[in-house]
């Protein structure tokens, strides 16, 4: 693997590792209670007591950042899990069965393309009220078409291969052909896409929380922190800088990891 491609994989792993470490650390250790108010040091800059400064209630930004990392990873994983599960299943069935099933399923998928995460979140927020679950489902459903199309195209390619024919000739049923012979071959593009979709999901989650359509205000999340910081920009930049950098780092991490994985798993990009 070329140096640059190895760099992507390593840098991505390092960034996501750092975020994951912060999230895990927040369960066992936090410098301050993330919700503890300290009116004697509101909107203060970094200090020995508050490493990254405080927000307008004097709450420790570093502690809130660590707790926010949990939600970012959690929402991202669940959302991409929903997309991978539903999209993968629809794509696999459409590609495998073909004909009318393919037509109908792909038509439904095309309609979902018209509903990006924010639009889906608006729709779901009207039905179920805004919240973490709504945001996760919205991001997941909006990502379904990408996974459906990807799985379908992989399945279409693989099902024409000789070893699948051989499996069929030996009497393997539909389910066995799909799960044992076809899907394992379709796995690597899905892994790459999962990482890239996680980057998009992190951005979407932050955006939805920023709009008040995601994580509820009483739970520290990076999007919430930014929304609250907006009103106090003139007085202190830290409450906006800290979560913004964290979001950027995480998104960059997932997309570098996705690029690196693609280079590692796909021999064609490795050669070029």
């Amino acid at each position, binding site marked *: 693997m070329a140096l*640059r491609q190895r760099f992507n994989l390593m840098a991505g792993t390092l960034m996501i590792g750092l975020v994951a470490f912060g999230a895990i650390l927040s369960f066992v250790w936090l410098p301050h209670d993330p919700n503890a108010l300290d009116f004697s040091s509101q909107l203060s800059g970094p200090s020995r007591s508050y490493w990254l400064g405080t927000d307008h209630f004097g709450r420790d930004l570093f502690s809130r950042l660590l707790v926010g990392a949990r939600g970012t990873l959690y929402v991202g994983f669940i959302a991409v899990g929903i997309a991978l599960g539903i999209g993968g299943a629809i794509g696999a069935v459409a590609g495998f069965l073909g004909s009318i099933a393919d037509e109908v399923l792909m*038509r*439904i998928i*095309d*309609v979902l*393309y*018209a*509903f*990006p995460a*924010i*639009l889906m979140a*608006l*729709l*779901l*927020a*009207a*039905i179920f009220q*805004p919240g973490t679950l709504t945001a996760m489902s919205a991001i997941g459903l909006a990502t379904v078409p990408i996974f459906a199309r990807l799985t379908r195209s992989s399945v279409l390619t693989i099902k024409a291969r000789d070893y699948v024919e051989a499996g069929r000739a030996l009497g393997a049923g539909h389910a066995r052909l799909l799960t044992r012979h076809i899907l394992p071959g379709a796995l690597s593009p899905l892994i790459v896409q999962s990482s890239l979709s996680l*980057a998009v999901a992190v*951005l979407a989650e*932050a*955006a939805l929380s*920023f*709009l*008040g*359509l995601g994580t509820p205000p009483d739970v520290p999340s990076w999007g919430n922190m*930014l929304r609250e*910081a*907006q009103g106090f*920009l*003139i007085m202190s*930049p830290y409450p*906006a800088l800290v*979560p*913004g950098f964290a*979001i*950027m*780092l995480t*998104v*960059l991490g997932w*997309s*570098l990891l996705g690029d690196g994985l693609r280079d590692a798993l796909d021999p064609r990009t490795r050669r*070029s």
Partner: protein
Amino acid sequence: MFTFIVRRFFSALISIVLASMLVFSALLAVPGDPAEIILGLNASPEALAALREKLGLTVPAPQRYLNWLTGIVRGDLGESLNYQKDVSELIIDRLAVSVPLALGAALIACFIALPLGILAALKRNTFLDPLVTAISQVGAAIPSFWLGLMLILFFAVELRWLPAGGYVPWERDPLGTLRSLLLPIIALGLGQAAVMTRMTRASMIEVLNQDYIRTAKAKGLSGRRVVMIHGLRNALVTLITILGLSLTNVFIGSIIIEQVFALPGLGRLALIAIGTRDFPLLQGEILVYAGTIVFLSFLVDISYGFLDPTIRYA
């Protein structure tokens, strides 16, 4: 070509009808009585009955959907409960903010991304390519709403060159409108530029690796001619897709940016509709957004047909 356009048009139409079904049935799934949700539990039975009548809840759902759909065809999206005005009128008013915002952002993105992406692809073996790639990778990771806050901090709070938010209507002061839209356009456009740069670079590299480019070079054409005539023209199909995609992205991204800069656009109207449980308004808004996305992808499909005959006759 005509058959191709007609076929694509009907395909887009079916998508819009299906999208309208999805929007309608989603709001049908709102648990409880919509009239009670809107007016609260203490509302009088008369007020509830009147609102149910106004919302059309007295007729069966399929009939209601058909009424709504025929209304849409006539340009009538119903009446907003909160504003007591036609939904279509409210939406058209807000488009004066959202459309220039989205178009401006897409324009900025194109101006930055196309030359940068092509340059990076052409200079693959120099320091320029990794530099452009790194910048665009970081740029794509920056949330537009955070960039918006940072721009406010620098250009509005520190330098005091531009307003931190708010909106001046076109008819009152066009220059003021441009000033109030400039930072939002940059916030929305830069991130999109980063995404587009990567895509442009990738599609250009793919084209430049084709055999016909080698042939063109081998027969002695100048570098510029090879790039402009043989490279760019063939990359155009992908570039049009990228453009369509980014128009969709900035249109949807404007929902967040309008919130950052307190712009009275379509996105803020949608958030108000959620907050006030204004279902007719929300329904209309979501359909307009989804319809625009379908329409943009229809335009992209059509331009494919013009640019690439193999797609037209497939």
